[in-house]
């Protein structure tokens, strides 16, 4: 149920995102989603890719430090209140470190990527709801 996510450390200067994307593209790593976080001097690029281990190696060869952490992908209702509905379940009581949404859809429905402090507990909590965590295989089946 866990989805591996790659986080890359970058200096906050022009061209870094391009460098990350190009290294991955040249190595044939498929990028499903990314989000950026920055803090003045540096930033983190968080990526969902079809081959995270390869991505980390490719980035290391390009002189970039990256790490893999587990996140949870789960479908949300596109209508108003969809996310609020998800968070109103037991899932909402789990500590969510940060979250971000896909700009695209999976099989026509919207999904959210969520990073919980305790991924296992969150997946457990999700089981009791109508929101089913999406499998890695399912997420990457069209890539």
């Amino acid at each position, binding site marked *: 149920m866990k989805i591996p*996510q790659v*986080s*890359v*450390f*970058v*200096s906050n200067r022009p061209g*870094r995102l391009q460098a990350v994307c190009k290294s991955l593209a040249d190595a044939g790593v498929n990028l499903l989603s990314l989000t950026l*976080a920055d*803090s003045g*001097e*540096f930033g*983190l690029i*968080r990526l969902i890719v079809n081959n995270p281990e390869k991505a*980390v190696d490719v980035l*290391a*060869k390009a*002189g*970039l*430090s*990256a*790490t893999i*952490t587990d996140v949870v992908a789960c479908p949300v209702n596109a209508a108003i209140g969809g996310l609020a509905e998800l968070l109103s379940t037991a899932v909402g009581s789990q500590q969510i*470190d*940060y979250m971000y949404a896909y700009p695209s859809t999976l099989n026509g429905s919207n999904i959210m990527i969520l*990073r919980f402090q305790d991924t296992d507990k969150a997946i457990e909590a999700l089981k009791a709801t109508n929101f089913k965590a999406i499998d890695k295989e399912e997420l990457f089946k069209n890539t």
Partner: protein
Amino acid sequence: MRSTAWNDEENRVLPEMALDFMPEEKLRELQLQRMRATVKLAYEKVPLFREHMDEKGLKPEDIKTLKDVAKLPFTMKKDLRDTYPYGLFAVDLSEVVRLHASSGTTGKPIVVGYTKEDMDVWAQVVKRGLLACGFRSTDIVQNFFGYGLFTGGLGIHGGFEALGATVIPISGGNTERQVMLMKDFGVTAVGGTPSYFVRIIDVAEKMGVDIRDLKVKRGIFGAEPWSDGMRDYIEEKTGIKAYDIYGLSEIVGPGVGCECECRDGIHIFEDHFYPEIVDPETLEPLPDGEEGELVLSTLSKKAMPIIRYRTRDITAIEKTKCKCGRTIRRIRRIGRRSDDMIIMRGVNVFPSQIETALLRAEKALPHYQIVLDTKNNMDTLEVKVEVSRDMVSDSMGAMEQLNKKFKHSIEQILGISVIVTLCEPDSLPRSEGKAKRVVDNRKKM
């Protein structure tokens, strides 16, 4: 514990090591005899030295005991520069078989020369150091000290060759090839600057090579001050034992002193070099055990005898005997040079302190650089730290915490506020010789 008997059969001291175990009385006798000969040679052949002696009203005959050495004039780096290139040579150039020179980052380089005999002594002292650290003729040695005018490469090379080891004169640079040869040639020993070896470790890791899986067992490192933390880091990452060799071109190059298997200070090869510690302010000699500036005299050099050279290295001569039983005295490992000192808002800062702080914060040794600047008429000290794979987190909060941890650790040691900037790997300049840790962009008042 080994007895201190000189060349006692039972001690299994190799014949080549015997000089390290000379009875102390004999050693002092030899030092006095050689010191007197050196002073006489310099007085007769080196005009500047004679001038300095005359200013003090001293004659070579005035040196009757080793205590009298304290009366002799000092030699400063400036003296070597002022007499550039051959002014301190005591022999005709036809007798000089080798020249070396410093990089000359602060103006004219310093030139040093060696006779055939000097070269032999140099190789022998390096060899004795290597033997004391457990290197043997069976070793296959990758020497990545820089070859050329710098004394490091050829000095270490000469010692290993005298030992009978197989030397690979690869010099610094082309780090991927260094890793490849280390593996393919079955290298058992390495030599170079510790900062460059850390670079090799990084590159090996990137290439998927774990140095622990290779045959390398020992390393001889020097040419820059390195902390005990850096030694732990190197040993943990590679499984080798790292030893410190000390030297400076002005005296001979590497091999003025070296650690032994006990790694409890650097034994000075006292039959060829005479160490003293002086108070850097008053220049008065200090007793063994007290910290001050190391002053060295050559006792057998012919091409360029140097009397009481002020090294700028801060250390102490150990009072106690080393467990190895060597009678030649030890100095404490050099943690700092008065030359490296940064004065920041009135506080003395040494790069080695920052290294210690980084190690303390993260238990790893990231590549770092110190940048001094002036912003709004205030001097600032910035430490740029490269973020390795082990340090990355997906959480912004954790990254900011890491930054704070470094900052706090450095400030606690230095007592002044600093800026810490996290940088991408490989974004800071790498040197293939001595690490250039400090960039000073401050506006001079």
